[in-house]
């Protein structure tokens, strides 16, 4: 099966290289057969890489420990669930997984558009196949997952050595979310390749009109959703597994996943300027380019060991390959842009400084400032070491100090932007739309102050959250009221109709609300508290309204691990609430110990208990308890975000037309519509 997998990977590389060559030839000769052949080669990569993935999974499930990758990342007693996830546990497998996801995206992009955009798709195919070629080169020659464990005898013959058992999966990965989190994140990373391919194709092919930007937006939304889910699942994994009581440590690898998400978010907003007004074309193309480059940079940071990270399980010298690829993409983007920059001239100009356009510009400015701050903080230790020769650390305080004000301003814009009209917003309209939400926000702030809230950032966050929520609610109310008055249906049904008539706009509002909920959850961090104590059976520990009573310490054994476990009774206001069982597991195959956190989660707060081990001085068990308010809001906000994005991806039942300002007189019937009349499906 290993030979089969290796062979499939070689064929996939050949197919990808052919797709690039044939695609370029097809663009030059405009030969339809060659175009079809290049497309088919591009799509066949998916089938071939799938074969390689299936063969590697087969080797995992059959415990073939003669394969280095299987021996390194699995063992006989590893639950089946995790044998499946072992595919992406190490460098080689995760790169294969990356290639596979990329091939799925490429297949879908090529297949779904096989009869559309004949001028654009050959370029898209070439760009996708070029990226695939890079990853397949890595799969075949740099980090092959099909390496056999063996030794060469004196005569040169290979003696395969099958080990009795494997080293097992990294215990940190033996958690349900690790089966979902990496695929989601990879779907995000790889997904941004498709918008990149379309943007590059439109630029290289000087594709007329704005159609490509609609296609790019949809693919970006898909990738962005996966990236969002991946980031949130990663945060939840860190929270539930790493046992330090938090969910985001501004670790370089966390930051790396956050950067393309930020630029992707900026693009999803600024793209509306191009769709509605034909503006910001250069900016949008570069946002797509930069998002893709940040995905590659993120991969470089994750795998090269350039920066110190707790995600250190996949470090190698592969960084040189990614650095070269990143440089190649940058040069390609600059050249493509420079050669075709006249194609990106904006159609329209700004009519008023108080308009939706201005708010989008500021939104993009704030997002990009946040992106730069995170990138700068992440790379600064490396830069400082180059300049000064001294290794330094840049920890969470830097990121918090820089990004929190930016994030709060962004939250403010989240409320302001959608209520401003395109082109121009009158003073009356401003007053009508903002007076009550702003009053509501300020009232909430005053109440919180009276109740004793003295932290400045949570206070601002509360005011902004109420303001944004009220603006969103007012938008729903206004629209639903109009429909209700016209159709006679009740307000709830009318709101449903309203949403379905313009899924993009109202899906977007729901996503904005999700961001509000997530911000509320994050602001709870200001009120975190913790206590650490040595405990014997019968000992008590108080934190917030909870009392933790130690009932027992015991040992639990199963084929995969042995563990020490504490049995803790949780009392709330003196009454027994539940039992928690924090553990410390010793994984037999990998000989590694890990904590298993126990969490009592409510919408208001999490009681987070860690069995921290035994004190070296007294040999008594140590329990570390944290009280983390509002954390659940973050996960709940994530769910709302997914729902909102999914809704925004559904076509509206009634397309909404937006007309860009026409400067020409109305054309005669039968003559072509002027370029300046733009039609969009759904509003923002």
């Amino acid at each position, binding site marked *: 099966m290993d030979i089969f997998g290796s062979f499939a*990977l070689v064929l996939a590389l050949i197919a990808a290289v052919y797709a690039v060559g044939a695609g370029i030839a097809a663009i030059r000769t405009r030969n339809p057969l060659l175009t079809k052949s290049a497309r088919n080669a591009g799509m066949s990569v998916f089938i071939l890489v799938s074969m390689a993935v299936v063969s590697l999974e087969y080797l995992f499930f059959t415990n073939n420990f003669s394969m280095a990758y299987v021996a390194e990342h699995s063992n006989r007693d590893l639950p089946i669930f995790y044998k499946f996830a072992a595919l992406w546990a190490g460098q080689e497998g995760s790169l294969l997984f990356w290639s596979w996801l990329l091939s799925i995206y490429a297949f879908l992009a090529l297949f779904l558009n096989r009869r559309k955009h004949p001028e654009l798709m050959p370029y898209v195919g070439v760009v996708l196949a070029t990226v695939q070629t890079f990853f397949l080169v890595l799969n075949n020659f740099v980090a092959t997952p099909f390496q056999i464990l063996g030794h060469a005898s004196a005569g040169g013959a290979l003696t395969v050595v099958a080990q*009795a058992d494997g080293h097992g999966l990294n215990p940190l990965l033996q958690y349900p979310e690790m089966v979902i989190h990496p695929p989601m994140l990879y779907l995000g990373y790889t997904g941004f390749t498709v918008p990149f391919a379309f943007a590059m194709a439109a630029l290289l092919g000087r594709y007329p009109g704005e159609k490509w930007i609609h296609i790019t937006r949809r693919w970006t939304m898909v990738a962005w959703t996966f990236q969002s889910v991946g980031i949130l699942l990663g945060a939840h994994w860190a929270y539930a597994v790493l046992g330090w009581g938090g969910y985001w440590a501004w670790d370089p690898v966390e930051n790396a996943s956050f950067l393309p998400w930020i630029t992707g978010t900026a693009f999803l907003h600024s793209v509306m300027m191009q769709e509605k007004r034909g503006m910001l074309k250069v900016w949008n193309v570069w946002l797509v380019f930069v998002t893709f480059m940040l995905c590659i940079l993120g991969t470089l940071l994750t795998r090269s060991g350039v920066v110190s990270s707790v995600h250190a399980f996949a470090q190698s010298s592969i960084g040189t390959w990614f650095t070269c690829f990143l440089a190649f993409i940058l040069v390609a983007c600059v050249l493509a842009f420079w050669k075709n920059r006249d194609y990106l001239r904006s159609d329209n100009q700004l009519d008023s*400084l108080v308009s939706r356009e201005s708010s989008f510009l500021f939104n993009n400015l704030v997002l990009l400032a946040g992106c730069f701050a995170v990138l700068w903080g992440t790379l600064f230790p490396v830069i400082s070491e180059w300049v*000064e020769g001294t290794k330094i*650390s840049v920890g969470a305080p830097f990121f918090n100090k820089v990004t929190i004000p930016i994030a709060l301003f962004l939250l403010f814009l989240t409320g302001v932007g959608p209520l401003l009209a395109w082109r121009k917003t009158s003073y009356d309209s401003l007053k009508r739309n903002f007076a009550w939400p702003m009053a509501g926000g300020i009232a909430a702030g005053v109440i919180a102050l009276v109740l004793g809230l003295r932290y400045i950032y949570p206070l601002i966050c509360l005011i902004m959250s109420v303001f944004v929520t009220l603006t969103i609610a007012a938008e729903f109310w206004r629209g639903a009221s109009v429909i209700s008055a016209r159709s006679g249906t009740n307000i709830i049904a009318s709101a449903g109709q309203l949403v379905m008539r313009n899924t993009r706009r109202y899906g977007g509002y729901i996503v904005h609300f999700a961001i509000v909920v997530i911000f509320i959850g994050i602001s709870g961090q200001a009120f975190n508290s913790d206590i650490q104590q*040595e405990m014997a059976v019968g000992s008590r520990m108080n934190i917030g309204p909870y009392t933790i009573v130690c009932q027992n310490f015991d040992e639990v*054994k199963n084929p995969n691990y042995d563990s020490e476990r504490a049995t803790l009774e949780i009392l709330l206001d003196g009454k027994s609430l539940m039992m928690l069982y924090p553990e410390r597991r*010793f994984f037999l195959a990998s000989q590694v110990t890990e904590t298993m956190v126990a969490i009592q989660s409510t919408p208001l707060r999490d009681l987070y208990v860690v069995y921290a081990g035994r004190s070296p001085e007294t040999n008594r068990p140590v329990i570390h308890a944290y009280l983390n308010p509002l954390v659940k809001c973050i996960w709940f906000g994530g769910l709302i975000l997914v729902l909102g994005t999914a809704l925004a991806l559904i076509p509206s039942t009634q397309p909404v037309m937006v007309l860009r*300002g026409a400067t020409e007189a109305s054309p005669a019937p039968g003559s072509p519509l002027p370029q300046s*009349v733009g039609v969009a499906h759904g509003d923002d």
Partner: protein
Amino acid sequence: MAMIEPVAEPIALLARMNRSVMLSTLVLNLLVVPLALAQQSDRAKALSMRMMCVCSCNQVLGVCNHVGCTYSHDMLKEIDTRVARSESDDLIVQNFVQEYGAAVLLLPAAKGFNIWMWLMPIIAVIGGIVVVRFALVHWRKNAVEVAPSRVSADLIARARREMGPDE
């Protein structure tokens, strides 16, 4: 591509280990795993939150529970000892920097080249505002010269009819 690699150290031994040996290993492992100190003074805790663990786990010293970490326990204990000796915060931090290097600080001292760590985001924001303002003013100025006309209802109807399917 199937490639040949020298055989790795056999690990089958592990599978043959009996439960009692495993349990002893577990207990031994749990005993030797360094832990955060059970009871730290507030000052020691605050100091530990200003420093990084130096084992490359990239975690703040005060919350480092990186299993198998050979640094955090000793570092926390050293902070406790120095706090108990009534050493000033600055002296403790200075000693840690001498012992473990500047990377032990959660944030580098704001001097020399490291000032740029704080300056660059501010410069970027100011630069961004200037660029946005320039763009707004430029676009606004041009807009005065080209006043958009109204789009007729006929044109709207035609655009709706000719609108292609969405992607």
